[in-house]
């Protein structure tokens, strides 16, 4: 256990370094984009004097390295700063959006993960049957289309024609939990279809891989039923790769939803990031990117820890 603790500490330190580098790269990239905040904000209305007034008031006339260092020091003290555009506290702005994004990811995960894993197990159990081929074909079809196309198909069928779910996810804080779930249904289903194939196929492959091992052969010779063999004997040993793919897809559910957010008008982090990049609102861009990067770092760490716990051999790489 202490070995795991040491690894976690090491990885967290490396994660912090990663975040620092990410922030540096993001800052540099936004600086490289043409136009600055004042120009983008005023659009066609920008005159040299108003741009200068903007820059003076927001401290944008300082050289880039000074602005970066200032931002970094505030950040280290836990102060995300304020949005350049409307002076709102970024922590507050981000808080609501992050909640929404996590909520969508959670709803999608609750539908997708159990479904994908059980489909994967069933597909392994009935390998090469019509069921196996059908599930494979369907999930692969769903994943082959771009997300927004899947979203439009769902809107047309479930939203417009059958009128089961609202076509846009107009959610706000005052709504009750189930109302929120109801309004989040279509984007969550879209996300489900997008990640279903990965997880399902990985589960199937991991289990099938093991089915050729001698101990499975032994179990079969003892006369165990195929279902029992797979659930009790194969699955525990296949957990490590399954956990990996599940957790990485969880990360995708959080950071990869920009298109889905746009199609369903879902007020999550992705939309905030896109708008902020367009206006060069650097503090908001930085904050969003750090949240995304941290999500990846932490979930990757979680994936490793869980895999190791399911298979301690991984702690000692040869």
């Amino acid at each position: 256990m202490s070995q795991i603790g040491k690894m976690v500490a090491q990885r967290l330190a490396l994660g912090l370094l990663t975040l620092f580098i990410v922030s540096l790269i993001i800052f540099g990239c936004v600086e490289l984009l043409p136009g600055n905040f004042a120009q983008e904000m005023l659009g066609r209305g920008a005159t040299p004097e108003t741009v200068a007034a903007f820059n003076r008031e927001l401290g944008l006339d300082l050289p880039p390295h000074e602005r970066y260092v200032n931002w970094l020091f505030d950040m280290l003290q836990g102060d995300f700063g304020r949005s350049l555009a409307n002076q709102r506290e970024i922590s507050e702005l981000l808080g609501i959006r992050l909640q929404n994004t996590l909520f969508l990811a959670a709803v999608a995960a609750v539908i997708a993960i159990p479904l994908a894993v059980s489909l994967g197990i069933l597909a392994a159990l009935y390998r090469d049957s019509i069921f196996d081929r059908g599930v494979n074909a369907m999930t692969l079809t769903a994943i082959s289309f771009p997300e927004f196309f899947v979203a439009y198909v769902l809107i047309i069928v479930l939203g417009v024609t059958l009128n089961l779910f609202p076509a846009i996810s107009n959610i706000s804080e005052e709504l009750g939990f189930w109302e929120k779930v109801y309004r989040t249904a279509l984007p969550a289903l879209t996300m489900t279809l997008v990640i279903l194939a990965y997880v399902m196929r990985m589960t199937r492959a991991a289990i099938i891989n093991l089915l050729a091992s001698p101990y499975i052969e032994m179990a079969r010779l003892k006369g165990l039923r195929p279902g029992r063999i797979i659930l009790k004997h194969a699955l525990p040993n296949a957990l490590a790769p399954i956990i990996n793919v599940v957790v990485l897809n969880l990360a995708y559910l959080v950071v990869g939803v920009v298109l889905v957010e746009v199609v369903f008008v879902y007020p999550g982090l992705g939309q905030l990031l896109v708008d902020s990049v367009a206006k060069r609102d650097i503090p908001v861009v930085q904050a969003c990117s750090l949240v995304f990067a941290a999500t990846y770092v932490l979930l990757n760490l979680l994936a490793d820890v869980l895999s190791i716990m399911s298979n301690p051999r991984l702690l000692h790489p040869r």
Partner: protein
Amino acid sequence: MKQVDLQKRNELTQLAKKGRISRRDFMGRAMAMGVTVAAASTMWSNSVPAAPKRGGKMRFGSNHGSTTDSLDPGTFENGGIIHQGYGMRNHLTEVDSDGSLVPELCEKWEASDDAVEWVFTLRKGVEFHNGKTMDAQDVVDSMNHHRGKDTKSAAKPLLAPVKELKADGKNKVVFTLSGGNADFPYTVSDYHLAIMPSTGDGKVDWRSGVGTGAYVKQTFEPGVRGTYKRNPNYFKSGRGHFDEIEFLTIGDVVARTNALSTGEIDAMNRCDLKTVHLLKRNKKLKVEEVTGTLHYTIPMHTDVAPFDNNDVRLALKYAVDRDVLLQVILKGHGVVGNDHPISTANRYHAGDLPQRTYDLDKAKFHLKKAGVTKLSVDLSAADAAFTGAVDAAVLYREQAAKAGIDINVVREPNDGYWSNVWLKKPWCMVYWGGRPTEDMMFTQSLAAGADWNESHFAHKKFNELLIAARAELDEAKRRTMYVDMQTIVNMEGGTVVPLFANYVFAMSDKVQHGPKMAGNWDMDGDKAIERWWFG
């Protein structure tokens, strides 16, 4: 009843339902079909909601709105926030549905004979949402928000001609201009120049969203939604009919259309022109369009070769097939432009000026006259200029090639288009929301030395006429001057104006609006929030 009569009757009631016919005309035509007075009257009241009704929760879906929006009217830059701003706040004057100027927070305005000094007498007893009574100091501070060295307002150039501004007692505000301007009351209707409560130290409170408007802000989440409740003390009668407003930003046009057709919202702006004919088949929806001042321009820098030669400019103006652009880029939802920026929605549109057409012979003639055998020019375009700008440039290239002109389309990035391409590249694609008056339009886009003089146009007679017309209070003389100026720009200007685009928007059939809708902005001049109602 005969089949024909029935059909005619249906057409007539349809007209009435859409508000396209007055009661008098309706009665006359109904009786001509042999309907009795009493029956015609019933028909009329059945098909027309007699007067606006109060009530309901109106949900708008707008393509505009960004998470970077703020409530500071100096930074307003898109239709979403402009519309909500008009709901929360009022202005000294207002452009009415028919394009005329009416007093809003003022009772009347008076000008000195040379149109230099303007006195606005304020409406008495108007209260802000926080209970404070609006007075002259609020107006002065609201205007000063856009003036001075430290202002961050995009409206600074608009108020640059104001030399002095002072309150005269509690109910009068006096503007002294650096030169006469007969249209000054139009200037103060601009969406930036909202009246907000003064904080007492020369500043205004814009953060709270408190204004005098028909709707009181409840929540405002930039780029997502704003919710509003009706202001029970609203000073205007016959405006502000909805009890509640929810204003949603729905950037994706498919999402917006779906939201409207499934009843998630009650009205949307910017229909998808490619599919709007399909939307019209939905019986529960109405699609409306208004020709306004929105137009596309292709300005050439008239001081840069080869555009410094007027014959080259004319050749390029003759080498574009506007009708094809209208059909391809706007799917017919617009009108062709005549190489000047004044719309039919403006007061002094030069309707008699011959429409410039696609004429290869004339293009070749002017090329020859310019002494150019082979003209090769770069045209910068990006869809940031307007949707379809790149396609328009490519079409232009094909059309001009037939006159022996080689247009090289340079595809520019959308990012930073307004800071790096517009006003910088010698020939590029641009859109203009347009302005309510000829003077504002000309002053900002064509006057010598103007910040946004995109064609570097410096025409002596034009500039003289501009100043003379600005201070001219005689309607007939002004019209002549503005027509002359449109002719000059048409013949000698550096700007190709190929198209005026319609505002195309849709609403549920429950939503009603007045017989006319304003064309100065989208959605009834971005005032649907207080002008429309549920029938």
